[in-house]
């Protein structure tokens, strides 16, 4: 049976992190460090979320001179709604560890 979209533990951990501050812009490197996802896992997830209209992207000037602009991300209103729904629906066993500890493994 095919898996429902956006319910993998990796995607859920990204959604969970973005949902902590849905109106803030997040950098890919920081997301990778906080979710412990490798770049090769994280970016395809971000791509997919952006394609589905759940993620807003923007290029921002780097704070350090001489460095290229950085790509930043935040959830759209639809994305925040979907993220909440997905995280609530997900069985405790599939939940990211960080989320399970917050919700008491509900």
């Amino acid at each position, binding site marked *: 049976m095919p898996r429902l979209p956006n319910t993998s533990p990796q995607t859920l951990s990204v959604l969970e992190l973005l949902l902590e501050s849905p109106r803030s812009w997040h*950098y*890919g*490197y920081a997301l*990778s460090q906080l979710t412990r996802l*490798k*770049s*090769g*896992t*994280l*970016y*395809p997830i*971000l*791509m997919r979320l*952006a*394609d589905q209209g759940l993620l807003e*992207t923007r290029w921002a000037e*780097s704070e350090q001179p001489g*460095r*290229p*602009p*950085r*790509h930043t991300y935040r959830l759209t209103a639809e994305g925040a709604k979907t993220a909440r729904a997905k995280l609530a629906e997900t069985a405790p066993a599939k939940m990211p560890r960080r989320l399970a500890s917050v919700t008491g493994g509900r």
Partner: protein
Amino acid sequence: MQIRGFTERLADRLARQLLRWLHRRVEPGSREWLDALTAESECADNGWQRLRWALGAVPLVWTINRRRHMNEATRGTVRARFAPGVANVAAIAGWYAVIIPATYGAARFFHCTLYFGDQPGGCQEHPFVFGSIVLGGAVLGMLTALAWRARFAAYWWAVFSVVNTVGFVWFLGSGIADVPRYGATQSAMLMAATFGVVLAAIMRETLSRRSIAAHLIAGTISFAAADSLIRIRDSQLAADNVNHYAVLGSAVFAAILAGLIGRYGSRLSAKGPMDRTPTERSL
């Protein structure tokens, strides 16, 4: 300390080279996400971290190009339908054009005869001949396919290299020195699976709707073709059994693989062409 500094600089250089090389592998209109990953690589604290980060660009580029390829394939132009299929077939045919003369060349170099049995003086006295040819050939095939942008063939040869490596190590470890027979079995598997996969590739590129039945037919044809070829070459019963199972297994594998491709392709075509990212649309 100096060595550590040197290795870090080396890793940093490798990371940057890898990102530059991958950048060239992506069409200009589809580079947004690769550029994003590349920009973030500047945040890495040292060369090794940067290299680890840059390695993530490999699956990312694969994803980007696969999506672009799917978008093109669903546009319905003649080129989009036939060119990738032809490139894949050409890449695999090109591999055969190299591997067959190489096999015979190696047999000549080692002054042995290509027997498919256990005759004295056969290439079984040089157990690494076939292994090196098959592995080297598979890698060469993969590179050729990549150079021709025949992705399907490239992935196929990559999988084949891995399967052959595991199979060859197992074979040598088992203490059986009958490498020519192993070579024959490998050839049977190669022929059957390749034939099935090539047919599947053609169907994938040319048909808008794939059916599992068509792919099973591809697997069955490949089984019949390879099995009959092997029976012509090797009439020994034991060899027939070995080859029979090898061919049957590889044909089933080809059919399953083809079915998976068809299922994946059908799911995409049912959804319709994928939308481009907002940034790509604005470009």
